[in-house]
């Protein structure tokens, strides 16, 4: 718990200086930046949903975006795989660099980009097809040449769903429970072996037990993937993420290691939000 390189004597200095957590409990020193958001502004017509946000997402970490409704966190998330392209009047300024590639450059094809950045939505949205086809379809349309059965099994295992569905792969996915459907959606995204997995409030439509399973899953997925998670549930952000970014009215107020943000937020607005004293 000792921070060795504290300036001696000056306690006021000590209090202000290092906000770094103790080396024991901290996540690995921030690794490679996999998604770099630079001065991003997103407008819908005259309305700025995201204002000049700069944020780095590190490899093999879960980064949570929190904030009140309408703070732009979902818009920010959808900017990372260019799902905002489908929104009319949506104008993006600034840059997002994913693995060294600026994704809003004219040379970047959003269809190809989305293959590398998986997405899980708020409401489980499996295709009204068989469980098998749900997982295999993405790989199929992207020209996967390997053993499809093996891929499907691997992804379902990774999503913790295999044991539950291995005997009914040909059944329609809509017969699964909500939590199972959401895990199927995660498996479906994994089939493309994405670099980053975006999750837009993945548990908001699920019961607490299903939620806990998804949270465990996110924790496991971090070893191989990078997760960016939007959540309304602050406890969830606290539980599953390594870093948390707080957005308010389109602005990034504070981004910090999660446990620091939840014990000692620097910004009064963050403090007010996480302790529920808003407005």
């Amino acid at each position, binding site marked *: *718990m*000792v*921070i060795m390189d*504290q300036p*001696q*004597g000056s*306690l*006021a200095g*000590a*209090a*202000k200086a290092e*906000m770094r957590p*103790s080396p024991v409990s901290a996540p690995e020193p921030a690794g490679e930046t996999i998604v770099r958001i630079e001065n991003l502004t997103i407008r819908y017509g005259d309305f700025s949903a995201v204002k000049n946000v700069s944020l780095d997402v590190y490899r093999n970490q879960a980064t949570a975006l929190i904030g009140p409704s309408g703070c732009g966190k979902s818009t920010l998330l959808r900017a990372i795989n260019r799902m905002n392209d489908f929104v009319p009047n949506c104008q993006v300024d600034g840059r997002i660099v994913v693995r060294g590639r600026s994704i809003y450059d004219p040379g970047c094809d959003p269809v190809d980009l989305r293959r590398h950045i998986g997405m899980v939505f708020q409401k489980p949205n499996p295709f009204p097809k068989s469980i098998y086809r749900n997982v295999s379809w993405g790989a199929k349309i992207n020209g996967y040449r390997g053993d499809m059965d093996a891929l499907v099994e691997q992804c379902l295992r990774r999503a913790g769903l295999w044991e539950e569905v291995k005997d009914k792969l040909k059944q329609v996915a809509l017969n699964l429970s909500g939590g199972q459907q959401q895990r199927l959606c995660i498996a479906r995204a994994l089939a493309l072996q994405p670099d980053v997995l975006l999750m837009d409030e993945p548990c908001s439509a699920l019961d607490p037990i299903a939620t806990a399973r998804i949270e465990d899953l996110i924790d496991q997925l971090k070893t191989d993937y990078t997760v960016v998670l939007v959540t309304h549930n*602050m*406890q969830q952000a*606290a539980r599953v993420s390594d870093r948390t970014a707080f957005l308010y009215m389109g602005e990034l107020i504070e981004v910090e290691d999660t446990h*620091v943000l*939840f*014990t*000692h*937020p620097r910004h009064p607005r*963050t*403090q007010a939000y*996480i*302790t*529920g*004293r808003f407005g």
Partner: protein
Amino acid sequence: MTLHFVNLLDDLRRRSLRMAALVEDILNEACEALLSGDPALARRVILRDEGVDAEEVEVEKEVIRLLALYQPVGIDLRLLCAILKVNNDLERIADCAINVAERAKHLVEHPVHRTNTELRELCNVVQQILRRSVQAYGGEDLESAQAIRSGDTIVDDLYARIVQNIASEGATGPKSTAAMLDALSVAKNLERIADHATNIAEDVIFLATGQIVRHQQ
């Protein structure tokens, strides 16, 4: 729900502060009993310990209840943690003060020590430290908490001198070994109280900044 929680938190904080005032009072009376040689007062002080013990348990229960039910974060979390730790320190301080009062009953028969200026000063300093700690805690005053932390050396010096005096008195000729041991115990307990009071100041620093400054210079 948040308003409800904020009210509960506020109640708890006030309760903790009341307990701090109580402990401060006990220390003051224990020192009074010691310095004025009033065994009746010493006995009354000793009786007050039970109240502190009961209150400590109640506060701790309430902290645990709020942690379990509201899963606080940020300032709320730090406040609850600080209350819990301060609570523990206050109870320890009360115990030490009771120990001082116990010794005071015996020391009445040995007026020598009443004129012991070092002991008198130690009492004063420790009372002062506790008072300032409790004030810093009540006002969540970061600066005075930091000042208290750096002022701990005075107590250590005084304590060292008292030990030295007792040692040299023992060498020059035995007066009463029991009395000397009592005096030593009083000094030791007072020194402990100063440590706990400093801990309280450190908890105030944690409360204000989220920094754990204990064991740091």
